[in-house]
């Protein structure tokens, strides 16, 4: 055991990415691997898990009280950070990355370091695409929007089916809404390629360090915070993934 008190950092910059998503840069760079996450303490409100979108930044979507409080902060304000936690991505060979919405956050460092050959970026509409310029510079970028305002008209899986030969990639790194990730896992399973997929999962977390069990997956009891958050497709292909998750009290919620 070692001292895991939150490190208090000062916000240096608040970058508005989309109407509901902001990137928060702070005054300290953490030594994290792409896909690792931290617990972000918003003093007086709550603590929430968040993927690093860079060594000194997180990218936050406003979905609840704590995330709304986070994005309403301004430079000079302080927050607490515990982490980095979890295992991160471990890409080998030729890498395809697939992101939906704010799911691009943990994949961004992978693309920035030049590890991603092809990137499929999805969003509901053009205004909600995140980091498209950076990704276009670093990767062969394919865009999908639900309403057709940019790129392919439809889901990222439509791009996967019509524009990409998935079997030509050794690693497929995925982060986004769970049903999107599940439909990609299903496509890998059809080709017996589940082990090539690496999926960054979300579950309700309280401790972040593998003790409380609030993020345990059925049926093997894998902890998303400590055994994940990135799992290979074969680790989760027979799990609750895509079916249900649990709320703060542990009650099951259909996905």
């Amino acid at each position, binding site marked *: 055991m070692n001292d895991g008190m939150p490190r208090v950092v000062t916000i240096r910059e608040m970058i508005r990415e989309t109407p509901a998503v902001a990137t928060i840069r702070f005054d300290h760079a953490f030594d994290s691997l792409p896909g690792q996450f931290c617990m972000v303490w918003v003093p007086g409100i709550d603590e929430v898990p968040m993927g690093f979108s860079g060594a000194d930044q997180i990218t936050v979507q406003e979905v609840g009280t704590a995330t709304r409080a986070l994005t309403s902060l301004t430079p000079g304000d302080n927050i607490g950070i515990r982490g980095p936690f979890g295992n991160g991505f471990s890409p080998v060979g030729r890498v395809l990355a697939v992101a939906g919405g704010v799911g691009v956050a943990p994949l961004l460092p992978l693309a920035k370091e030049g590890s991603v050959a092809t990137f499929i970026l999805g969003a509901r509409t053009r205004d909600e695409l995140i980091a498209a310029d950076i990704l276009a510079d670093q990767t062969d970028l394919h865009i999908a929007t639900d309403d057709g305002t940019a790129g392919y008209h439809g889901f990222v899986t439509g791009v996967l089916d019509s524009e990409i030969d998935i079997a030509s990639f050794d690693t497929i790194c995925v982060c986004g809404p769970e049903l999107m990730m599940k439909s990609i896992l299903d496509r890998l399973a059809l080709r017996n390629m589940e082990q090539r997929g690496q999926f960054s999962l979300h579950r309700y977390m*309280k401790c972040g360090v593998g003790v409380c069990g609030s993020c345990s997956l059925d049926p093997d009891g894998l902890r998303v915070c400590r055994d994940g958050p990135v799992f290979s497709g074969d680790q989760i292909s027979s799990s609750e993934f895509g079916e249900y998750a649990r709320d703060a009290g542990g009650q099951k919620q259909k996905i």
Partner: protein
Amino acid sequence: MITLQNDPVNVGGITLNNHLILAAGVLGTTGASIRRMLRGGAGGAVTKSIGPVPAAGHPGPCLIPLDGGLLNAMGLPNPSQEFASELAHLAEEPVIVSIFGGTPDEFQTVASWFADIAAGYELNLSCPHAEGYGAAIGSDPRMVRACTEEVAAFGLPTWVKLTPNVTDIAVIGEAAEAGGATALVAINTVRAMRISTKLRRPVLGNRFGGLSGPMIFPIALRCVYDLYEACSVPIIGCGGISSAADVIEMMMAGASAVQIGSAVYDDIGVFDQIASKLYSDHGCSAAEIVGCAHE
């Protein structure tokens, strides 16, 4: 080092696979998680504490690892009655259901949901950071006795987990024993807090919480020793145990078995790790060791 024979263990009416039990509140949140711990060497497992209504627990931060311990204020998050379905596939296993309530009636109600599937009950009369629950009633001997009586009436093994945050733990142990407890579990966490000096405010969302881990082992040991002098039901030691040597020391103080919680933070395989050092073919019988430091 002293080792034990790997004989069948029966403590407080429950047959365990070894002397090492998963403590309440640690990875006992789902059936799958409990099964993982049993497969990983835990001789029995205590569930997350289940209460009369579903609860989300305290706002975060809820847990802070420290040098030599964990500080937590989870706030008893639980799915309440729905949890019974989690245990359906564990009915034959040594799974002890931890329950809490604010009154003897609430303890009775929660216990009734698990009467057909639990190997036994553990009454949480000791959580230090839940208003109206846990230690709030577990420091009152009359309430401890009344709650224990309600649950013991189901006829299942009934363990009572005690708080160290009282002047004399033996008085509380005697009350539980008088209420029909088949074993006492000592101890729950010790009231504690940390402050972020930069933010000038407590770190835990609940401001204060409970300390566990190696830091509190000497406190737990002293409580077990005191209870052994005062009570006749078996005692289960809990608090900072992270090695086979700790287990032996706790048994010498009077524990018939132990619970392990915080040590899974360093290694989820801690049960197998400890068991591999604790047991040997030439080991002593537990009866030779338990309470020997009192002679």
